[in-house]
C-alpha cells in the first residue's frame, strides 16, 4: 500500500486524523479543525466518499445481470423443503391405533389465508398461546394485522375475528378461549392525508 499512506495537509493535520474525527461524529468539536479551511475541505471530501460509494453500489445494482435461470427457483425449492411445521395439534379419532393431527404451521397459514380475504387487510404474525398439544386445553389466538386507511378498523377487526373463529372451529379441535387482534402497522401504499395512526 504505497499510495494510501496518510496525507498530511499544509496545516499539519493528517487525512487519517480528520477521518477519525469524522467517524467520531465531529465530537468533541475541535475548533482548530472547524476553523481551518483546509481541514474543512478535507472533511467535506471525506464525507463525499460515502455518497460516491452509494453511487457505485447503485450503479452496480442497475448494471446487475439477471441471475441464472434457476437461481430463484433453487432458493424457493430449498425453503419449501423446510417449511416450519411447528407443534402438532391433535384431532380426535375413536380408534386408539390412530394418531390424527394438524400442524401448527398449517393452522397459522390458514389464519393468514382467511385473514387476507378481508378487504384492505393483511395479516402480520399469528400465535397460538397455550398447550395446543393437549386436547381441550384453553388456547388464545393472537394476530397482528395491518389495515388500509379507508376501511374502518373496528369493522375489519370484527370481520377478521369472526373468520378466524369459524376457520379454527371448522378445521381444528382447539378450545379457543380468546382471539386477540392488534392493528400494528400500515401498508406503505397508504396515502398520508387519511392515514390512521
Amino acid at each position, binding site marked *: 500500500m504505497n499510495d494510501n499512506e496518510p496525507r498530511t495537509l499544509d496545516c499539519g493535520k493528517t487525512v487519517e486524523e480528520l477521518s477519525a474525527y469524522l467517524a467520531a461524529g465531529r465530537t468533541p468539536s475541535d475548533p482548530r479543525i472547524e476553523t481551518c479551511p483546509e481541514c474543512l475541505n478535507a472533511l467535506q471530501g471525506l464525507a463525499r466518499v460515502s455518497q460516491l460509494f452509494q453511487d457505485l453500489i447503485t450503479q452496480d445494482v442497475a448494471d446487475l445481470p439477471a441471475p441464472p435461470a434457476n437461481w430463484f427457483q433453487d432458493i424457493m425449492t430449498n425453503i419449501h*423443503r423446510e417449511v416450519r411445521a411447528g407443534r402438532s395439534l391433535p384431532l380426535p379419532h375413536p380408534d386408539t391405533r390412530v394418531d390424527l393431527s394438524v400442524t401448527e404451521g398449517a393452522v397459522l397459514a390458514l389464519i393468514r389465508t382467511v385473514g387476507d380475504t378481508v378487504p384492505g387487510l393483511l395479516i402480520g404474525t399469528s400465535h397460538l398461546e397455550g398447550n395446543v398439544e393437549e386436547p381441550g386445553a384453553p388456547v388464545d389466538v393472537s394476530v397482528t394485522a395491518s389495515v388500509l386507511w379507508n376501511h374502518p378498523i373496528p369493522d375489519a377487526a370484527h370481520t377478521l375475528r369472526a373468520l378466524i373463529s369459524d376457520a379454527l372451529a371448522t378445521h381444528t379441535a382447539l378450545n379457543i378461549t380468546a382471539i386477540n387482534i392488534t392493528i400494528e402497522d400500515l401498508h406503505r401504499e397508504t396515502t398520508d392525508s387519511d392515514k390512521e395512526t
Partner: protein
Amino acid sequence: MGATSNEDGHPLDEDLLTARVHAIDGVTAVYPPAPTLTQISHLLAAVVTGDSQRLDRVDVRTDGATTAITVRVGTSIDTATPDTATRVADALLQHIPDGHDSTVTVQVSRIA
C-alpha cells in the same frame, strides 16, 4: 413386508395406499413423510431425477407383525379438516392385515 397379497395388489403397497388417499374427498395433496435419515437418499434421488412424485406418498414401515403407516396430507379449506383426516385414517385402517399390531398416523400439513 410379510403380509399376503389380495386382488388389489399388496395391501401395504405404498403407491396403492397413496392413490387411495389421493381419492379421498377433501384431500388436496400428499406430502413426503417428515424427513428422517433414511429418506435423505430418497430425497436426493428425487431431486436429481426431478421426480418429486416419488416422495409424495404414504410411508409404510412393517416387520410383518407390526406396521406403522404414516402420511402427511393437505386438505381443502372447503371441507372440515377433522372429517377429512378421519376419512384418511379410516381408509388406511382398512388396509391393515388382520392380526397386525398397527398404527396409523395422519398429519395435516396444509389447509388451503
